[in-house]
């Protein structure tokens, strides 16, 4: 440490050096605060541990002492030096000197930056009035925020409106919908817009203006956050696909309404899983079709125990406690399961299903006066438009792509837009409820603030030199750059910008610059590193 202190004193532009055992402790912070006015310092460098946890603390100390917080620089000589070179003290010390010199070189070129205070509309807009959307709207309403719920159909409930009974409760899905929709309608904070769709979205986190076509009229809604809960739809196969005809060969979507209207018990039922999923065209497993098939098999068996039911499957995806219970119950009721090989899928025709029975190693034929195809949930047709309007991504299957698949399942990379239910990926009722509430919770994280501030570290594009090549627009992961065709230039929306620097690195004309990481600052660091 002593050696580093002495070395730092010799660096150009360094006016004062202080060694602390714990700079992050209250004592250390106070030393910074008193040294700034005492030695008339205009830049501060701390060489210590990681900026990830401690940079805001030191920046705050500078600010309190009257120095612009962006005139602060940190050298991470713990994670990037002492931890790496634990067994090489001499080499490590030399390396730390280099890091300090680089930080000082950059610090000399730092400029004051400012954070912009933004307005914040304390309202939420939820797109989609299915289970997830209703749950999100209810939760936000209960937390005291005004909510606009936009639903394209003439009633709330989404896909659940087409479901017959739910297990294990044997409750009619309609009752669930009525209950939830009733409470949404009664909630004084929630305004429901039926027969409505979003046509245009302008603005950014805290300050969106959303155009909605409601029943043919155009209205404009100001909102602070947007929750995407547009759900998914059941894939309707083409005529003839696995024998599909909508009468004797149907999907579960068809079967649900047939059962609700009172299906006369068929004698032999065959159910085929993974029809149109886990295949080349749709690589994903649609999560809910196995449990739907088992549920309907149980309900058919309960209605008439004499009905013979065979489920042709690849893997029964009955994850968790309740599904596995249901799976077992179906077997107790006598539902038969036959594994099939996707290379040799079952053939449907002439009132029978022919299949290669993997476990027996031979072909079998089973009579079937009703064949039910378990087709997957697929993305809504409007998902692409909504993704473009909100500048949030969808994946190759049209499902919305969350901020982080493990750790941010209900967020987008863009602040202010949240995600839940089958718009993200096929979900059960319980999962849709939980995700709706969860998205509300994430959205409330923004709404509960008094005001929003941008970071000072944002990009800027020089309109004088910008040639309008759109390279920056293509790399920006946050949709923060707009192209103005009339002037032929790109411009950064500093509110959306997260300061990643992608545009600055891409720009061929050097017009894009990231404040706090400008070329002259970085080149000074590199030069210092190379010349020592």
């Amino acid at each position: 440490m002593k050696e580093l202190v002495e070395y730092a004193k010799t660096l150009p532009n360094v006016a004062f050096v202080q060694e602390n055992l714990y700079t992050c402790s209250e004592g250390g912070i106070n030393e910074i605060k008193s040294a700034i006015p005492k030695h008339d310092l205009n830049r501060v460098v701390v060489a210590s541990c990681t900026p990830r946890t401690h940079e805001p603390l030191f920046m705050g100390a500078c600010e309190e002492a009257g120095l612009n917080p962006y005139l602060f620089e940190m050298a991470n000589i713990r994670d990037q030096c002492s931890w790496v070179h634990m067994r090489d003290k001499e080499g490590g010390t030399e390396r730390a000197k280099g890091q300090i010199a680089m930080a000082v070189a950059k610090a000399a070129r730092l400029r004051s930056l400012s954070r912009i205070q933004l307005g914040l509309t304390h309202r939420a807009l939820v797109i989609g009035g299915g289970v997830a959307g209703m749950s999100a709207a209810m939760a936000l309403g209960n937390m005291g925020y005004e909510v606009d719920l936009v639903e394209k159909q003439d009633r709330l409930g989404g896909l659940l409106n087409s479901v017959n009974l739910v297990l294990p409760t044997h409750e009619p899905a309609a009752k669930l919908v009525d209950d939830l929709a009733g409470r949404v309608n009664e909630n004084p904070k929630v305004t429901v817009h039926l027969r409505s769709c979003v046509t245009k979205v302008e603005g950014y986190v805290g300050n969106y203006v959303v155009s909605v076509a409601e029943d043919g009229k155009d209205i404009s809604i100001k909102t602070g956050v947007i929750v995407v809960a547009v759900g998914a739809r059941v894939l309707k196969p083409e005529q003839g696909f696995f024998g599909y005809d909508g009468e004797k060969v149907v999907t579960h979507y068809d079967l649900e309404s047939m059962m609700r209207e009172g299906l006369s018990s068929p004698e032999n039922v065959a159910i085929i899983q993974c029809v149109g999923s886990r295949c080349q065209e749709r690589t994903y497993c649609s999560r809910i079709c196995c449990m739907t098939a088992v549920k309907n098999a149980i309900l058919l068996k309960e209605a008439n125990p004499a009905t013979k039911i065979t489920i042709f499957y690849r893997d029964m995806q009955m994850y968790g406690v309740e599904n596995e219970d249901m799976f077992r119950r179906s077997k107790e009721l006598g539902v038969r399961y036959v594994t099939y090989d996707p290379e040799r899928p079952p053939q449907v025709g002439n009132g029978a299903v022919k299949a290669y029975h993997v476990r027996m190693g031979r072909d079998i034929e089973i009579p079937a006066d009703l064949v039910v195809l378990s087709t997957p949930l697929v993305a809504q047709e409007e998902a692409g438009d909504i993704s473009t309007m909100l500048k949030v991504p969808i994946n190759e299957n049209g499902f919305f792509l969350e901020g982080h698949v493990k750790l941010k399942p209900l967020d987008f990379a863009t602040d202010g837009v949240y995600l839940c239910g089958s718009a993200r990926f096929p979900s059960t009722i319980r999962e849709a409820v939980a995700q709706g509430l969860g998205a509300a919770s994430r959205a409330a994280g923004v709404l509960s603030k008094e005001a929003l501030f941008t970071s000072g570290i944002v990009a800027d594009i020089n309109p004088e030199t910008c040639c309008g090549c759109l390279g920056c627009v293509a790399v920006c992961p946050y949709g923060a750059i707009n192209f103005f065709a009339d002037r032929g230039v790109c411009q950064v929306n500093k509110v959306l910008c997260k300061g990643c620097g992608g545009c600055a690195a891409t720009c061929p004309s050097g017009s894009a610059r990231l404040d706090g990481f400008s070329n002259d600052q970085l080149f000074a660091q590199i030069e210092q590193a190379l010349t020592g």
Partner: protein
Amino acid sequence: MAYSEVTEFSGQVGDFKVKVHRKARYVDDTRCTACGACAEKCPTRVPNEFNFGLDDRKAIYKDYAQGIPSVYTIDPKACKVLQGGKCGVCAKVCQAKAIDYEQKDTDVELTVAAVIVATGYEMFDATQIPEYGYGRLPNVISSLEMERLLSAGGPTKGHLSRPSVVRGEIRLKDLAKQIKKAEKAEDAEALAKLKAEEEWLEDHVKKYHTAKKLGFIQCVGSRDFRFHKYCSSYCCMHSIKEAIIAREHEPETESSIFYMDLRTVGKGFEEYKVRGAQVSGLKYIRGRVAEVTQDEDLNPVVHYEDTEQRRVMSMTLDMVILANACSPARGVVGLSKLLGIELEENNFVKTHPNRPLDTSVPGIFTCGCAQGPLDIPESVAQASSAAARAAEVVMTGGRALAV
């Protein structure tokens, strides 16, 4: 409040009284900077339970570098000072003066409007299935032991060493000492025995160092009427993940996964499974494993029925990894009594069928594996939803209890 437990509980939604018992760490958490000097100098070694005893830790310790809060703790059962002996090295080297051997347990009383039960799960104890040999056969390990072996911060720094070798190396050091002792004592019989063991172990350590042929057994304790009849949801994916990572660490690795149904219901999971076979060469074998034995070189031998080939078969492997079930946390029974919440038949926290976060007591919510097996994204999503339910209660004084 880590290292703490709820000991008393009363009241109702909007006004719960909670007593939290905070165990003494013997380290002042407001002073400790987690520099690690104490653990470096501490002379007392004990088996590291975080790494399942595959290495040692000190009496003053932190489970892993990224642990939160980032504070060291003294293990009172191992620390010489706390056991009434002499030492005090950690207090001497601690520049932050954070060591406090006199620290006492404390109780904190809180008044809260809502409670979230997020007590998680325990890994199923596979010694209950003797035919799989866990705890008896050295190279049969649990999924979490595999995680530690694959971790760059783990006992082998991410190298997939076989446990018989890791433990064998520890034993070799011990043997060297014992041999010296036997030589001094001129005990020829003992010496011969020790030398034979040393010779065999040295050869074993050399020959079988890296595990390259792996077998993953699914549904260990799950979908099994003797133990848990439910499916643990996440094990198919973590076995596939571990097999893929093992291959990334060592390109010669070959993995077979023995399964009943490969459940790949999450976003991107099916694609990951397919890629596992195509890119990492994983073999998925549909069949329940009946028994694991081992040969004279401590290689586990898996006996199973390959249902697709309709044959009973055996496979000799370097290491077997069990996909241990997600068991309810043992402590949840006591906690549920204290809070007055109901558990379901498996001892997971019982929830309302249409309100997945609501327990049987208004104002007490639950999320994650406390209410049943869940993978990471679903747990994270549920955690946000439980927070929303709690926020509704806090903001409305408990009026908004229906979804």
